[in-house]
């Protein structure tokens, strides 16, 4: 029985939550994602940077310091990766049943 490999970037609870949220939305800001994921600001920043480095999301920042506002969007590559991840995930259950 052959299973598809799961994308290690997405196979992490916090990053998966971020990607699923951004896939359902046009965009979301840092404050919303922090509330949704219940993550600390530091951890969320690290995971967002990782997703951005991979090319799965795009962030845009306005303002500086305390007044700064970060908005995140999913990229087409991110959407494709999430779809592929969900397909791979489902294949496990298809094989099991």
């Amino acid at each position: 029985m052959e299973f598809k490999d799961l994308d290690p970037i997405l196979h992490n609870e916090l990053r998966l939550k971020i990607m699923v949220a951004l896939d359902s939305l046009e965009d979301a800001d840092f404050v919303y994602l922090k509330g949704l994921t219940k993550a600390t600001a530091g951890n969320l920043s690290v995971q967002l940077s990782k997703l951005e480095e991979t090319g799965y999301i795009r962030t845009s920042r306005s303002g500086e310091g305390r007044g700064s506002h970060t908005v995140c969007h999913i990229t087409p590559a991110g959407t494709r990766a999430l779809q592929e991840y969900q397909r791979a995930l489902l294949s496990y259950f298809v094989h099991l049943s």
Partner: protein
Amino acid sequence: MEQFDALEVIARTRGKVDMDSNVLTGGWLFPLWGWLTAIFYSLAFILWQLYHQEWCLWLWVGIPVVGFPIMMSILRKDHERTHIRTHRSKLALDYWIFAACAIGIGGFLFGFAGIYEMAENPLICVLVGIGAFLTGEVTRFRPMIAGGLIGASIGLGAFLLQGDLWVWQELCIVATAVSALIIPGHLFEKQSNGV
């Protein structure tokens, strides 16, 4: 994380985001623009009755002049609040931008051409009514859907006010602002503040 946990994370997150998507961010914009519209158009109507001067019909220019600085200053302070935009809410936002441009450009074109009594005011009512209806649909907020339909209906009725009656179209805009912007906007703010 196990595969089953991943599926659960996906399902839960989608459900939570779907619920959050119904929250109207920036709901205060409706009462802001609604009150400004109602005040300026009421004033235009009263002054026209008193003086019958063309400048009375240009008072609407004061709405963006007063409204934009207030809106921008509140938006600047608003950065601490959460913001999300769904694919549907972006459509509604794009519609409002289109409607604002159409109303502004149309206002100048009709104004300079001196054809106030034609379609401008009823069209404003219809555009605002459709915008409120769309926003209500996106946020699934029934008072806004109803207010939008009432506003658009007032606009359609305003097309009938021609000839000497055209100046009453100004009050139709006030009625549209009250039904489509002010009342649903305040109800929404009340609901989101848990009052």
